[in-house]
C-alpha cells in the first residue's frame, strides 16, 4: 500500500508531454491496484505535442497529418481519456484527480465525476476574483464538451475522464482530467488544432474567441502560489 498523502503530491510537476500522460496513467492504475482510494497530480509539460485519443489514428490521411504537425514542431501523441485533439505545451497546466467509487452507489458516474473536478475549480477561480466561472459547453472551442470550466462562456479548462474496474471487485476507478490554458493566447493553440483539421481534411475549424487563457482573465496572477489553492480544494472536496 502507498502511504503517501495526496497533499505530498501538490507540487506542479514538469515532465515531457509523454511523461505527463504516463503520470496520469500511473495515478489511475494505483487506484485500480488498491494502493489508495484518492490521488491528485498537477503537471505542465516542458515540450509541445498535440494529444488525442488513439481512435484518430484510424482517420484517412492520419499519417500525412502527423508528418505535417511534426514539421510545425507539434508531434502527435495519444491519451487514454476521451475527446478530440488538444495541444499540450508549457502554457497548459493539467490536473488529474483519481478516486475509487462504488458503482450503483449514490455517487453518480459521469456527470458526478465532472462536477467533482469542475465545481472546486470554479470555486478556486471565484476565490481569485473571477465571478463568472461555470461549467458548460463553449461552442466553437476545440475538444468541446458539456463540462468545460468556462469564464464568461469561454473555455478555460477542457475536461475528460477514464473509468477502469478496480482489480478483484466491482468498484470503479475514475480519473478526471482538466487541461487549463494559463499562458500564450488562445489563437496560438487554436491554430495548431486547426492545422491538424486542415491536414486531415476535416472542414471544421475552431475559434480563438471561444477560448480564454488564465493570464487574460487574471493578468499578473502568480500561478505558482495560486495553484496549491486549487489542489487543496480538489482534495478537500473528497
Amino acid at each position, binding site marked *: 500500500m502507498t502511504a503517501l498523502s495526496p497533499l505530498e503530491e501538490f507540487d506542479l510537476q514538469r515532465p515531457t508531454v509523454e511523461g505527463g500522460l504516463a503520470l496520469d496513467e500511473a495515478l489511475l492504475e494505483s487506484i485500480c491496484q488498491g494502493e489508495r482510494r484518492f490521488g491528485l497530480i498537477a503537471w505542465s509539460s516542458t515540450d509541445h505535442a498535440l494529444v488525442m*485519443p*488513439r*481512435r484518430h489514428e*484510424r482517420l484517412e490521411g492520419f499519417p500525412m497529418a502527423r508528418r505535417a504537425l511534426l514539421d510545425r514542431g507539434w508531434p502527435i501523441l495519444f491519451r*487514454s*481519456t*476521451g*475527446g478530440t485533439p488538444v495541444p499540450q505545451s508549457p502554457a497548459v497546466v493539467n490536473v488529474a484527480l483519481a478516486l475509487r467509487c462504488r*458503482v*450503483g452507489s449514490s455517487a*453518480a*458516474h*459521469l*456527470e458526478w*465525476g465532472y462536477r467533482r473536478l469542475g465545481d472546486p475549480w470554479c470555486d478556486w477561480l471565484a476565490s481569485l476574483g473571477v465571478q463568472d466561472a461555470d461549467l458548460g459547453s463553449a461552442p466553437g472551442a476545440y*475538444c468541446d*464538451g*458539456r*463540462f468545460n470550466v468556462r469564464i464568461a462562456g469561454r473555455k478555460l479548462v477542457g*475536461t*475528460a*475522464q*477514464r*473509468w*477502469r*474496474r478496480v482489480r478483484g471487485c466491482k468498484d470503479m476507478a475514475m480519473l478526471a482530467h482538466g487541461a487549463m490554458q494559463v499562458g500564450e493566447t488562445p489563437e496560438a493553440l487554436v491554430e495548431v488544432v486547426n492545422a491538424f483539421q486542415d491536414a486531415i481534411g476535416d472542414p471544421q475549424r475552431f475559434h480563438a474567441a471561444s477560448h480564454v487563457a488564465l493570464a487574460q482573465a487574471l493578468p499578473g496572477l502568480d500561478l505558482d502560489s495560486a495553484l496549491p489553492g486549487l489542489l487543496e480544494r480538489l482534495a478537500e472536496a473528497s
Partner: protein
Amino acid sequence: MTTEITVPEDLWEGDTEGVITAWLVDDGAEVAQGDLVAEVMVEKAQYEIEAPVSGKLSIARAEDDVVAKGTTIARLEA
C-alpha cells in the same frame, strides 16, 4: 455456452449513446475473465469493458459503432 458482452447499464447516467472507440483484442481471440476487451466513449469519458467470462470472442459491433447502454457488443463461447 455463449455469454454476451454488453455495455453495462450502470456505466453512465441518462440515455446518451456512446461509441465503441477500440477493440483491444481481435475477433476470434481467446480471452480470460476480467480481461479488458473494449473501450466505449461517452461525453469525453472512456470506459473500459471487461470480459465477464473466459472464452473465444466474437465481435458483434465494430469500432466507431454507436451503442446504447445494454447493447450486446460481442459474444464469448466457452
